């Protein structure tokens, strides 16, 4: 069971909102880069987020660049999962490859600042503050297997290959 606070964002949060291209010089200095997480969407997010919290987006979360730094800095901020109405393809894959769950659900039912609880097994999210309960789309089995190992590289290390 994951429990934490919801940080809500709007639709079309791009990888440029999450880690702007202008900070490319910090990409080999990840702790420094992570201080700017989601800066162009909410400049106060990095200082407010706590371990276990959730990033809650609208539709098409993570569109844009293939930079894996985007889900990586969100993970480094301690975020335990990303919730969104829909997620851009490369971002979704990158997050799973890093072992960061991305859950597709109706995020209109969750309000900013609410405390929420995610039951990964049951596939449900309970908003403790407003009482709403939503279920999320199951993660495709092949991706679940990668997530279960903590990401793609640990998965390949364990199995030595892709296992269908």
């Amino acid at each position: 069971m994951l429990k934490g606070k919801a940080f809500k964002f709007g639709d079309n949060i791009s990888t440029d909102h999450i880690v702007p291209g202008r900070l490319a010089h910090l990409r080999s200095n990840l702790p420094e880069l992570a201080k700017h997480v989601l800066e162009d969407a909410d400049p106060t997010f990095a200082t407010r987020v706590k371990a276990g919290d959730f990033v809650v987006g609208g539709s098409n979360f993570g569109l844009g660049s293939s930079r894996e730094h985007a889900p990586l800095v969100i993970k480094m901020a301690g975020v335990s999962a990303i919730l969104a109405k829909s997620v851009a393809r490369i971002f979704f894959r990158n997050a799973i490859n890093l072992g960061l769950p991305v859950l597709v659900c109706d995020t209109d039912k969750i309000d900013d600042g609410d405390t929420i609880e995610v039951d990964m097994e049951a596939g449900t999210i309970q908003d403790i503050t407003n009482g709403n309960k939503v279920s999320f789309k199951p993660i495709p089995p092949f991706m679940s297997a990668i997530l279960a190992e903590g990401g793609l590289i640990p998965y390949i290390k364990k199995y030595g290959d892709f296992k269908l």
Partner: protein
Amino acid sequence: MGKTLAEKILSNKSQTDVRAGDIAIAWVDLAFAQDTTGPLTINEFESSFNSLADKDRTVLFLDHAAPSPNCQLSTDHILLRNFAKKTGCLLSDVGEGICHQIVAESMARPGDVIIGADSHTVTAGGLGVFATGMGSSDVAVAMAMGKTWFRVPESVKVIVSGNFQKGVFAKDLILHLIGLIGADGATYQSLEFAGDTIDRMSISERLTVANMSVEAGAKAGLFAADETTRDYLTKQGRSGDYQPISPDADAEYVKTIIIDASTLEPTVSQPHTVDNTALARELKGVRIHQVLIGTCTNGRIEDLAVATSMLKGKKSHPETRLIIAPASRNILLQAIKAGYIQTLVEAGAIILPPGCGACLGLHQGVLGDSEACLSTANRNFKGRMGNPKGFIYLGSPAAAAATAITGEITDPREVL
């Protein structure tokens, strides 16, 4: 039942009979990273693997910061050069040009699977390649294993017929399509282009359209490989790389979109999403401080030719910076030989070295607060050109040249 291009290529490369929705483990013909995604890719590779699956089909491109504007990126470049030396993989150093352009010019072969740690890897779809962007972990694993996994995408067929009006280009077509279906209109899907307009399109135009398919969320933007493809490869000295490839007539598509090219008008994306499109003429009067002609979308010789013909004997507006960045060294050389560079410089242009330049906001044309740019690039997200207080409009090279002359967004038909 026949196969779409995506199903065909992924079936071939996985040696299994796969259909939309299936998982395919496919051989990767080319895996690459660039200078802003490469360092993480290399770290991930070195954390777990010892050797490359195929050093001749692994490439590192130094193009995003070319030449580097600061010590951190210069040091990243050293890391990439050293990795190439150590492993023998290919290195495309500063000055050679943008990864997607070089992949198209000298590496992509119809029927290939190409993955790159850059979202616009889809560009090579213009040559009949299943090409898609992935993150650093995926590319690191493909570099080591020579393969990757795909969920075979459902395909949307986009049929385009009719002739473009004067002043309307492939860029207007793809901007129109994205405006129509939205920035997530093709998420997890492949866009397959067909129709007589597409058949007549040059490779340069096909690359422009394929390049931007990811802006509708698509996993790939695919074109059949035909005689035009053969001619292009032959001109690049790679006739041996040609093989025809096309979807089966009875392939199954989730959706068909029909576009009449003759009804299209010059189109512009407004800040801050690509699907926020309008006609150029509707935006008349919007003041533009900087025009960028270049990038992997529209930095080819055909694009520079259009811009040059419009700017010849004219001057860019005194309060509008005109920046030109050829997409590769080859293109720069061709532009010098054709006299384009002289004409453009006389018209007031600033010429940047081949590379990404101002496109992603690292250097060479960062916007000031509340400044607006009209760019021929593919993306206008907030902060994209280095300043979240800037405004980016996207258009064709013709719209960009017209706008450079007047200093405000201008329908190119007014200048042509």
